C-alpha cells in the first residue's frame, strides 16, 4: 500500500432503499457524483469530443495559446491539450479500473473466506497480505517495469495486487465480526447452507463499506498510476495525465500554465472520489439512530424494576388503571430547602442535531440532607441520570440545565462559573458511576488515578497522596491495597473496580455522594458487599447520598427516603416505607406490581440478579 492508508470506512451498515436518494440530497455527494459522471462521460466519448488526433503534433504550434478549435491551446510539442486530456483520461481511468478489478476479484472473496471460515486459509492469506503491505508500492512498480516491460496495463495489474489488502482486510474484519452475530447463528441453526448464508446475510453487510472503499482505492490507484507516468516510465507517446504533468514539469520555467489542465483533471477526479466516499458514509450513517438513544432503548428493554417480593409489598394490589399524572404524591417540601442538596424545578434540555431543543427533565424537586440516603427510582430513560449529572455539572455535550435551581451546601450551582463549580466537584459532591470498568482510565494504574485528583484538589505531596490512597483502598475492604494500587484497570475485577471508584469518590472528603446505579453492573454477591460498604462509609462519615437506581430492592435495603421519577418528572416522594408499602401514585404501584407479576412471593429476599445491563 502506498500514498497513505485509505481512511477506514466506519460503521458497517447495509444500504437500504433511500441511501442513494440521501446521497444525492447531500450537496457534496451530488456535486462529486456529477463531476465524476461528467469526467467519465467526457473520457468515454473522447474521439467525438476531441478537436484533433492525439498523436498529431505541429512544432509550429508549440506552447500555442487557446484558439478557435483548440480551446485549451497546445503543449510543448504542439499537440492539442484538450485532445490529450481526453485520451489521457481514458488511459488513466482505464488503468485504475484494471487495478481495481484485480483488487476486488482477489480481496473480496479472499476476505469473505478468511473472515467466515478462519482457520489455515485465514492465517495464510493474512500473512501474505501483511507481506504485501510491507512492500513499498512505488519500488515494486518500478521493479515490475524492469521485469514486465513498460506496458502500463500490465503494471496496473501489479498495482491491483498491491492494493488488494485494502479490500481483504476490510471484508475479513467485518465478516469475522458478523460471523458470530446471533442472526447468522440463527440462519445456521435453521439449516441454511454456508454459501446461502454468505450471500444472504454476510455479503449484504459488507456491501456498503466495499463501495466506500472502492471510491477511496480508486483515488489511490489513479494517484499512483499518474505518479508512475509522471516518472516517465510509461510507454512513450501514450497520452496520460501523469505523462502530461511530466512534460509540463520539464517546461515549468517556460510555461508553468501547462500544468493547469492535467493537474486540474487529476485533482478533480481524486477529490471527487474521496468526497463521494465521505458523502456515502454520511448517507449510510444518517440512516441509523443516534447512538445515545439506541443505548437508552436497549437498556429500557432489559432493565425492569425489581424489588424484594417481601410480605410488605404483597399488600399492594397490582395493576391499576389510573391515569399517569401527578396526583396525590407527596410533593417535596417545597418551602424548606435541605442544606446539603436541594433541587427545585430543575429542567434539562438537549440541543437536537437538526436545531431546536428537547427537554428531558421537566421541573424536578429533590432534597438530600446530611447523613441521609435518598433513592431516586424510575425506569431507564426516566431522567434519573440526567438529574444526577446536572447536580454534578457533568451533563454530556449538548445538554444543559435550562431552568430551576440546584444548591449544594447552600451554594447555587446553576449559572455558577465552571471554575468554581469544579472546585466543588470531588471535595463537596462526589460521583460513583454505574459501570466500574469503563470508568477507570485504562492507560493509568489504579493508584495514579487515585493520587492525581487528591494532589490536585487537596494540594498534598505525592507521598502523602499515596499514603492516603492506600488507606482508602483498605477502607473500601480491598485485601491487598498495594497490589491493587499498582494494577491497571484491566487487571482487576468489576467488584474491585467499583470499590476503587468508591475510594476515588471518597478521596477528597466529600459531603454528598451521587451514586448512579452503583451496583447494577455487578454480580449479586458483590452487589450486597458494595451496598454494605456504601452504607458503612455513609454512617461513618455522615454522608448525604443520592442513590440513583431502578432497583427497588436496593431502595428497601438502603434508603431513608425515595423519589419516584417517570418521564422526566417526580411522581411521588416519601419515606422508603411509605412509598414501598403504601404507594400513592399509580405509576409507583405499577412499578411494584410489575415485580409482583413475575416474581414468586414465597422467597423473602431475591435481589435483582436477573438483570443484565
Amino acid at each position: 500500500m502506498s500514498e497513505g492508508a485509505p481512511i477506514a470506512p466506519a460503521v458497517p451498515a447495509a444500504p437500504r432503499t433511500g441511501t442513494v436518494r440521501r446521497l444525492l440530497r447531500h450537496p457534496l455527494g451530488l456535486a462529486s457524483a456529477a463531476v465524476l459522471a461528467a469526467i467519465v462521460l467526457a473520457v468515454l466519448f473522447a474521439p467525438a469530443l476531441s478537436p484533433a488526433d492525439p498523436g498529431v503534433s505541429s512544432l509550429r504550434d508549440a506552447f500555442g495559446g487557446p484558439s478557435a478549435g483548440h480551446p485549451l491551446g497546445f503543449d510543448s510539442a504542439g499537440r492539442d491539450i484538450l485532445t490529450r486530456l481526453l485520451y489521457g483520461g481514458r488511459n488513466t481511468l482505464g488503468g485504475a479500473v484494471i487495478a481495481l478489478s484485480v483488487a476486488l476479484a482477489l480481496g473480496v472473496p479472499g476476505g469473505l473466506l478468511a473472515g467466515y471460515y478462519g482457520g489455515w486459509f485465514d492465517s495464510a492469506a493474512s500473512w501474505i497480505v501483511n507481506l504485501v503491505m510491507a512492500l513499498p508500492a512505488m519500488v515494486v512498480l518500478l521493479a515490475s517495469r524492469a521485469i514486465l516491460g513498460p506496458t502500463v496495463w500490465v503494471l496496473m495489474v501489479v498495482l491491483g495486487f498491491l492494493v488488494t489488502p485494502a479490500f481483504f482486510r476490510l471484508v475479513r474484519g467485518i465478516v469475522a465480526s458478523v460471523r458470530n452475530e446471533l442472526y447468522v447463528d440463527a440462519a445456521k441453526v435453521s439449516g441454511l447452507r454456508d454459501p446461502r448464508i454468505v450471500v444472504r446475510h454476510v455479503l449484504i453487510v459488507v456491501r456498503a463499506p466495499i463501495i466506500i472503499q472502492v471510491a477511496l482505492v480508486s483515488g489511490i490507484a489513479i494517484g499512483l498510476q499518474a505518479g508512475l507516468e509522471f516518472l516517465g516510465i510509461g510507454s512513450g507517446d501514450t497520452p496520460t495525465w501523469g505523462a502530461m504533468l511530466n512534460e509540463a514539469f520539464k517546461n515549468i520555467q517556460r510555461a508553468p500554465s501547462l500544468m493547469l489542465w492535467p493537474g486540474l483533471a487529476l485533482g478533480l477526479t481524486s477529490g471527487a472520489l474521496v468526497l463521494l466516499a465521505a458523502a456515502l458514509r454520511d448517507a449510510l450513517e444518517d440512516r441509523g439512530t443516534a447512538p445515545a438513544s439506541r443505548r437508552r432503548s436497549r437498556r429500557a428493554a432489559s432493565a425492569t424494576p425489581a424489588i424484594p417480593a417481601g410480605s410488605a409489598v404483597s399488600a399492594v394490589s397490582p395493576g391499576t388503571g389510573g391515569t399517569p399524572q401527578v396526583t396525590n404524591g407527596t410533593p417535596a417540601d417545597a418551602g424548606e430547602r435541605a442544606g446539603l442538596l436541594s433541587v427545585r424545578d430543575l429542567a434539562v434540555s438537549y440541543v437536537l442535531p437538526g436545531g431546536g431543543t428537547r427537554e428531558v427533565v421537566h421541573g424536578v424537586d429533590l432534597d438530600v440532607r446530611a447523613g441521609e440516603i435518598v433513592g431516586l427510582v424510575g425506569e431507564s430513560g426516566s431522567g434519573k441520570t440526567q438529574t444526577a449529572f446536572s447536580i454534578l455539572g457533568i451533563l454530556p455535550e449538548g445538554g444543559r440545565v435550562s431552568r430551576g435551581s440546584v444548591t449544594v451546601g447552600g451554594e447555587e450551582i446553576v449559572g455558577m462559573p465552571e471554575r468554581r463549580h469544579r472546585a466543588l466537584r470531588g471535595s463537596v459532591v462526589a460521583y460513583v458511576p454505574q459501570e466500574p470498568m469503563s470508568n477507570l482510565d485504562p492507560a493509568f494504574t489504579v493508584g495514579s488515578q487515585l493520587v492525581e485528583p487528591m494532589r490536585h484538589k487537596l494540594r498534598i505531596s505525592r507521598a502523602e497522596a499515596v499514603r492516603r490512597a492506600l488507606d482508602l483502598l483498605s477502607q473500601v475492604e480491598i485485601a491487598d491495597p498495594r497490589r491493587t494500587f499498582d494494577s491497571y484497570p484491566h487487571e482487576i475485577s468489576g467488584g474491585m473496580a467499583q470499590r476503587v471508584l468508591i475510594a476515588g469518590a471518597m478521596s477528597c472528603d466529600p459531603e454528598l455522594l451521587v451514586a448512579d446505579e452503583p451496583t447494577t453492573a455487578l454480580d449479586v454477591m458483590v452487589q450486597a458487599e458494595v451496598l454494605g460498604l456504601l452504607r458503612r462509609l455513609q454512617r461513618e462519615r455522615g454522608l448525604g447520598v443520592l442513590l440513583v437506581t431502578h432497583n427497588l430492592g436496593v431502595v428497601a435495603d438502603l434508603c431513608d427516603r425515595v423519589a419516584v421519577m417517570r418521564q422526566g418528572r417526580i411522581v411521588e416522594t416519601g419515606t422508603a416505607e411509605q412509598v414501598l408499602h403504601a404507594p400513592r401514585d399509580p405509576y409507583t404501584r405499577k412499578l411494584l406490581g410489575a415485580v409482583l407479576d413475575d416474581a414468586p412471593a414465597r422467597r423473602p429476599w431475591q435481589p435483582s440478579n436477573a438483570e443484565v445491563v
Partner: protein
Amino acid sequence: MLSFIARRTAAGAALLFVISFLSYMLLSIPDMDVGRQLLGQGASQDLVDARNAALGLDRPVLAQYLDWLAHAVRGDFGTSWFSGEDVTRAIANRLPVTVSLMVGVTLVTAVLSFLLGVWAGVRRGAIDRFVQVFAVVGYALPGFLVTLVIVLVFAVHLRWFPAIGYVGLTESFGGWLSTVTLPIAALSVGSVAGVSQQVRGSVIDVMRQDYVRTLRARGLPPWRIVFRHVLRNASAPALAVLGMQFVGMLGGAVLVEQIFGLPGIGSMTVNYTTRGDIPVIMALVMFSVVGVIMINLVVDILIGWLNPKARIA
C-alpha cells in the same frame, strides 16, 4: 518486553527472507542478457558470455540467489551491473538525504497533526470544520500533484526556496534547511491530513468515554484531562496510522526526490530499477522493507507503552 522485541525481530527477519527470495526469483524471470546490454550489439558472443560469467549470471538462479544471500547478510550487496558502483556504499551515500526527509516529515506530521487533531476534537466548531476540509483535500490529492503545486508557488513563482538541488547537513545548516523545506512540506501534506483526521476522531471518541466524565466529576481541570488522559488514550490509534503513512511516504519520497532533484534513495530507485539492475533493486527492496519493519516495531512498542492492555506478554 525483550522477548516481544526478539519475537518481532525474528518474524521480521523471516519476512525479509521470504521477500528477498521471491523478489530475486521474479527479477530473474526475464532473460535480460545483461552482458549484451552492457557491451552493446557489436560485441562478440564470446565476450558477452565471458561478461555474464564474470557477473555470475551463467549459474542457476538458485545458486545466484544463495550467493547473493550469503553476501547480503554480511551487508555486502554487490556491485551495480550497469554503473559498477558498490551498492552498499551507494546506498550509504544517499541514505542521509532520504533519512533527513523522513525524520523531518515524521516530526512535522506528529506535531502538526496532534495539534490540529486535538484542537479540532476538543473545541469542535469552526476549527473542526477547517481541519476536516484540510484532511479531505490533503488526502484526496495525489502527493506528487501537491508537490508540483508547491514547487510552482514557492520555488517558481515566489522564489523563496530553490526548486532543485541538495546541500548536505554537514556542509551548511542553512543550505540544508532551504533545500529540504519544500520537499518536507510536500510530503507532510498528505500525512498530516491522514493523521490529524485520526487524532481528531480518537479524541472525540475518548472524550465520550465514561472515565473522562468520572475524571470531570473528580474536579480535575479540563486541560489536565485532555493532555494527560485523553491524549494518551487517543495516541495509540493515531500512531498506528502514522506507521502506515510511513510505507506511503517511501513511495512519496521517490516522486519528491525526483521532482526536487535530491540525491536520495528515492531518485536512486527511479534511475536504477527501471533498467533491471538486480543487485541495486534487491538492496533497495531490502532497505525499504527493513525500514517498514522497524517503524512497525517502534510503533507497536510505543502503543504498548501508551496502552497497558496492548502489552501482550
